[in-house]
């Protein structure tokens, strides 16, 4: 009976939740979804003549996509897993795209028109090595072409029709590294050339049909080889020698291997520092980058080298495409003064440029980094060329006939960090004409909506209503709105580009490729790290623009110097940039501002010294006042250690730097390395608002939430179980969850989950933590919740104490007091594995919370926090039910309607960001991965505003009708009264 009742109750609850979903025609009103692919690594053009022209690209975000060459739209797209990077891509049989991924261990064929996977072959890779995919040129479509794949010391010939392995040849030679595969046209012989670790050049002659080894030949090159090598033609290799000072041409198809050697200094007649070879698949030609100069050279029949061109500007070359028999074309781009110069040359007449175009590009796209070309037949039957150019900011351009046909902002597929900026305040003084026009449109719109409500609208009208809803000009305005829905989402991408997206429709308002985060002499391999709010004007909000702080560093190592850059939030102009002398380990935005309202930031370097920014006397005054109450913690995952720090005094550096502060270690927690390994650290969001500190129980008892900004959730797993799920037995695996106070290093709570394993995802909010992990015993994912309550304030429940003022509610709370906490926990099963977890945030913290879960299907699920309440019991009493406690179930329900991404998928989901709107009921949600998705949700529904499709006209008409009715009845009654009196 009780179970039935609880089920009924659950059903009722589900019904109540249904209303939280949206109707089909509401899609796109508040949300937008953008699809990206990431930085293009390789591109192949469709060779078939029929059908629309497409290009297939493989990207660094492990995406394979087919793009429309006319518009840049995505026809189809597949996002491979994080651990499945695409190495190479090719086209087989004219109808399949073949991709080799995961270091040459998986070969897949995708159908060109629709992207369906035709077959997949996994190749056994014994040891990691360079992988190579060789798809023979389409000699004939009807023939069963074999695709040659080299990976892990083994050469596989795979049928391109069904992916069957035709033959397999192992090269057991020690240190053998394949460098090239060549198949002379029409021949049944394959040459496999490779180097061994001791600079031997090995040539294997293999029968293409059977894989039989026909001939094995190896010659040692006395000077040694660097391993960098290019295949110049079917019988020639060009390699760099071990000293990287001269080029070696290797002719391998003859009966014996012959070398020809030439010093690079002879080629360029200059001294040089670095040299690298660039792939250029033009017969008999190669390219090399000597310092910053691009050198094009030709290999003569005798094996000698001849420089044909030197280019000093930043430039790159494309692979060659076959025009006619023996005629190959390749493209070259040079970048100079915001213009890119594209030239296309043909190999048999290298001096003349077949095509020369100059295109102006947005300077915020940086230099061209890669180019792929494709030819087509013009209306006058001559050869036309189009080029696909990958820019420094990871965007993709298609250039044809001297102009940019389309461009894709694919840097947005690799967002590193994001923040939000308010839009400018609306200035007073709007023209009357504008208002009139708006009024007319407003009336028209409402008439249409009225029609729609009264079921009088035709199909056309419905379409216009829908269009109006979607194109609601109100939401795309560039000013602040009353509800706080309109904002700028500022994102920082991996390429060091900062873009501002409008929350209304996701369009890019401005973008800037930060000069300080571009590769230069002072900073090679810069890495973009974080973005913070630097300056948020309140006093002069009308005339001052907010600005942002972008933090990056130069180089991978932990002691790499940092880079700071300040950018205006409204215009994207870089206001200031500093190259730091110290490294960046941690950036702490402090809750203080100087007199210019610039936020103080403390940057901790590798030596645990703190550096204060902005460097103004004013900021240091503010800082010195608050210095004694600044604490931070650092996590050393390798040593399984968490340390707490406080500031001590000035740095003891040689130079007197008054913005530098030394620190001291206050506490440390060391997890035993043999049994625990840090797997997850989570903290509360600094800007989170908590509305009420007390929670009233069913029995009218008050529990005080333990609300501390310093609470840190740490989870450790046993080292054996730190790998993939299933790599450890339940007995070996355990997970320990900790709640730590970051000021004193106190462990407030510690709990062990036996037989549990990562990956762990956690979110901390108010006084609770929700974390997700895998339970090996139950073979299911679980979510646990910990709620922590403060007992030291429980004495305040006495009314008399409150009246007499003896309570301690107003006394300041210090972390140094001994905490008296009570913890409530509960664990539930959860069906999905999870990619990211977040929690909704509202302006005042009154609205109940939802936990946003990025599921493995790249969708975002909103789960009511009520489901994760540790107070849920099997048979809640009537009072508990009234309070909203749901009967205890062992699993969390997944209600299809509560997917906030509805039909969309945020491919490659990495993070979910919640932003409070001004309207208390509403949270803005921005989730990103390869795709971007933005929506706004109301966890307790929009209780504080009317919905957008509320028919004001209907209300107006009703009021008018009522007023009219009142007047009429009044007149009638007057008349009646008069008649009565006359009687």
């Amino acid at each position: 009976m009780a179970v039935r009742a609880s089920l009924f109750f659950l059903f009722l609850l589900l019904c109540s939740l249904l209303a939280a979903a949206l109707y089909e025609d509401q899609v796109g009103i508040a949300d937008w979804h953008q699809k990206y692919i990431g930085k293009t690594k390789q591109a192949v053009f469709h060779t078939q003549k029929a059908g629309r022209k497409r290009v297939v690209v493989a990207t660094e975000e492990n995406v394979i996509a087919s793009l429309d060459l006319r518009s840049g739209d995505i026809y189809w797209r597949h996002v491979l897993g994080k651990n499945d990077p695409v190495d190479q891509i090719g086209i087989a049989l004219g109808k399949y795209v073949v991709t080799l991924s995961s270091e040459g261990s998986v070969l897949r064929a995708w159908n060109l028109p629709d992207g369906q996977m035709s077959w997949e072959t996994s190749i056994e890779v014994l040891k990691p090595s360079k992988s190579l995919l060789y798809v023979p040129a389409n000699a004939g479509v009807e023939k069963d072409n074999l695709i040659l794949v080299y990976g892990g010391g083994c050469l596989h010939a795979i049928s391109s029709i069904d992916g069957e392995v035709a033959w397999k040849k192992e090269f057991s030679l020690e240190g053998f590294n394949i460098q090239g595969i060549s198949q002379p046209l029409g021949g049944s012989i394959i040459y496999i050339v490779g180097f061994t670790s001791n600079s031997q050049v090995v040539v294997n002659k293999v029968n293409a049909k059977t894989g039989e080894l026909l001939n094995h030949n190896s010659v040692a090159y006395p000077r040694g080889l660097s391993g960098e090598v290019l295949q110049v033609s079917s019988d020639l290799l060009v390699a760099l020698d071990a000293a990287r000072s001269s080029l070696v041409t290797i002719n391998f198809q003859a009966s014996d291997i012959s070398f020809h050697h030439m010093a690079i200094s002879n080629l360029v007649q200059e001294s040089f520092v670095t040299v690298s070879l660039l792939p250029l698949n033009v017969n008999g030609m190669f390219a090399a980058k000597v310092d910053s100069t691009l050198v094009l050279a030709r290999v003569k029949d005798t094996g000698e080298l001849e420089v044909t061109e030197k280019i000093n500007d930043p430039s790159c070359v494309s692979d060659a495409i076959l025009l006619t028999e023996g005629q190959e074309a390749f493209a070259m781009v040079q970048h100079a003064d915001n213009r890119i110069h594209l030239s296309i040359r043909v190999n048999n007449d290298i001096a003349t440029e077949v095509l020369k175009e100059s295109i102006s590009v947005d300077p915020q796209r940086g230099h061209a980094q890669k180019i792929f070309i494709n030819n087509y037949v013009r209306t006058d039957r001559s050869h036309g060329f189009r080029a696909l150019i990958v820019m420094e900011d990871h965007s993709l351009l298609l250039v044809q006939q001297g102009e940019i046909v389309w461009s894709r902002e694919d840097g947005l597929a690799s967002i590193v960090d994001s923040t939000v900026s308010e839009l400018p305040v609306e200035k007073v003084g709007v023209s009357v004409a504008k208002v009139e026009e708006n009024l007319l449109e407003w009336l028209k719109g409402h008439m249409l909506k009225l029609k729609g409500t009264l079921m009088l609208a035709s199909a056309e009208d419905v379409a216009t209503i829908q269009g109006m809803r979607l194109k609601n000009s109100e939401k795309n305005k560039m000013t602040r709105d009353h509800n706080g829905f309109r904002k700028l989402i500022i994102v920082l991408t991996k390429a060091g580009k900062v873009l501002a997206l409008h929350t209304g429709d996701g369009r890019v308002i401005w973008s800037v490729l930060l000069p300080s985060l571009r590769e230069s002499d002072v900073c090679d391999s810069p890495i973009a790290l974080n973005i913070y709010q630097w300056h948020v004007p309140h006093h002069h909000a009308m005339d001052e623009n907010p600005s942002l702080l972008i933090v990056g560093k130069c180089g991978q190592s932990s002691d790499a110097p940092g880079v700071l850059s300040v950018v205006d939030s409204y215009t994207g102009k870089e206001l200031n940039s500093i190259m730091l002398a110290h490294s960046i380990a941690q950036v702490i935005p402090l809750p203080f501002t100087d007199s210019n309202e610039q936020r103080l930031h403390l940057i901790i370097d590798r030596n645990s010294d703190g550096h204060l920014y902005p460097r103004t006397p004013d900021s240091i005054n503010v800082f010195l006042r608050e210095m004694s109450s600044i604490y931070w913690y650092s996590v050393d995952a390798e040593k399984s250690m968490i340390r707490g720090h406080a500031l001590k005094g000035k740095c003891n550096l040689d130079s007197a730097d008054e913005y530098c502060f030394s620190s001291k270690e206050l506490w440390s927690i060391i997890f035993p390395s043999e049994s625990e390994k840090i797997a997850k650290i989570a903290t509360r969001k600094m800007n989170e608002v908590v509305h009420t500190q007390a929670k009233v129980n069913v029995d009218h008892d008050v529990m005080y939430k333990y609300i501390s900004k310093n609470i840190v959730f740490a989870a450790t797993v046993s080292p054996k179980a730190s790998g993939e799920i299933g790599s450890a037995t339940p007995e070996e695996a355990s997970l320990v969850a900790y709640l730590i106070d970051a000021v004193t290093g106190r462990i407030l709570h510690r709990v062990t989950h036996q037989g549990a394993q990562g990956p762990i995802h956690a979110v901390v909010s108010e006084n609770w933590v929700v974390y997700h992990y895998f339970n090996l015993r139950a073979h299911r994912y679980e979510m646990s919740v910990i709620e922590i309550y403060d007992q030291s304030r429980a004495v305040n429940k006495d009314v008399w104490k409150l009246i007499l003022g003896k309570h301690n509610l107003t006394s300041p709370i210090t972390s140094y007091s001994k905490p008296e906490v009570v913890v409530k926990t509960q664990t539930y099963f959860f069906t999905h594995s999870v990619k990211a977890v977040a929690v909704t945030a509202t302006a005042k913290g009154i609205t109940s919370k939802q936990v946003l879960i990025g599921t493995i299907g790249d969708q975002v699920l909103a789960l009511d926090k009520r489901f994760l309440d540790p107070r849920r019991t099997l048979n809640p009493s009537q009072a508990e039910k009234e309070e909203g406690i749901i009967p205890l179930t062992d699993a969390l329900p997944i209600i299809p309607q509560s997917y906030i991404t509805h039909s969309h998928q945020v491919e490659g989901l990495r993070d979910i960001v919640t932003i409070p709107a001004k309207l208390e009921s509403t949270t803005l949600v921005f989730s990103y991965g390869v795709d971007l998705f933005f929506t706004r949700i109301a966890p307790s529904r929009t209780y504080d505003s009317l919905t957008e499709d509320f028919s004001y006209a209907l209300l107006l008409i009703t009021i008018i009708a009522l007023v009219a009715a009142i007047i009429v009845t009044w007149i009638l009654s007057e008349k009646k009264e008069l008649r009565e009196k006359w009687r």
Partner: protein
Amino acid sequence: MGRRRSLLAFLLLLSISLSLFCSNASADFQSDELLQDDDEFGLEGARSPDLEHLNPIRTPIRRRSDPDSFSSSDSKAIQFTLEHAFGDSGFSPAGTFTARLKSWNHGGHTLTKLRFSRNALTHAEKEAFEKLLKEDDFYIIRVPSNVLSPGPDYIVSSIKARCLPRETLDEQFVIHAEGVNILAVNYGSAGPCQYPRPLKFPAKWSFNSYTLLKTSEQAPRTPAFAEELLAGENGEEEGVKPPEKSFWAKYWMYLIPLGLIVMNTVTQAMNMPEEQAGGQSGTQAQQTVAQRGPNAAARRR
């Protein structure tokens, strides 16, 4: 035969010595017995965290337990030192923790019976502490992270020195241990620490130490839940019914307006003194209202 006899004699001796030791201990260390119970209780993971402040284990200072008595018992006794530092000074020994290491059959170890004895503050240390109090600086302590084989890693913990002084210097150690490893030490004053911290000196310059050993709790898991669910299904009839509400609690929202209406009519009736009959009935109604009046007030509070 001779061997057996000697063995018997040995056992007898051992039991005598043990009983002697026990009686000795019970005579001298009344609190130790309590501690033992408390520890065993804690081991089961059943201790609720709020119990700890109710019965803290008070180890009086300067009352060192004889380490020899531990070595004579069969579980292993271990010692590790507590070091302290005043502000930026270096670490120096401050006291000794003694504990027993229990070995389990499956190879695990557990620390039990933690005791602490603090060295008396030297004059220099006292001065250093006074300086700390004046500067509102940190008093830092550390213990080795591995108590069996102290390595280079230390668990550090600290407190603002001004939080400690009361009558004496009250301190509390909550040591989180896992096997032979100490994860963390929650170090601080035994009670609340005021903020802003006033400068005050203790009446007596000695430490009053409380120690507590904490091991990890096991997370409760829902298998019990499934059984409960089944049990709930079987014992359907016994399901808790919500307590029946009183008549008043159920219908107060109807009764109050009704009362008002009645009152209204009564006053109206009073205004018409000509009609005697109506007035009588009115007083009756008023009586009933008057009876309900205080009741309603009590309910609504």
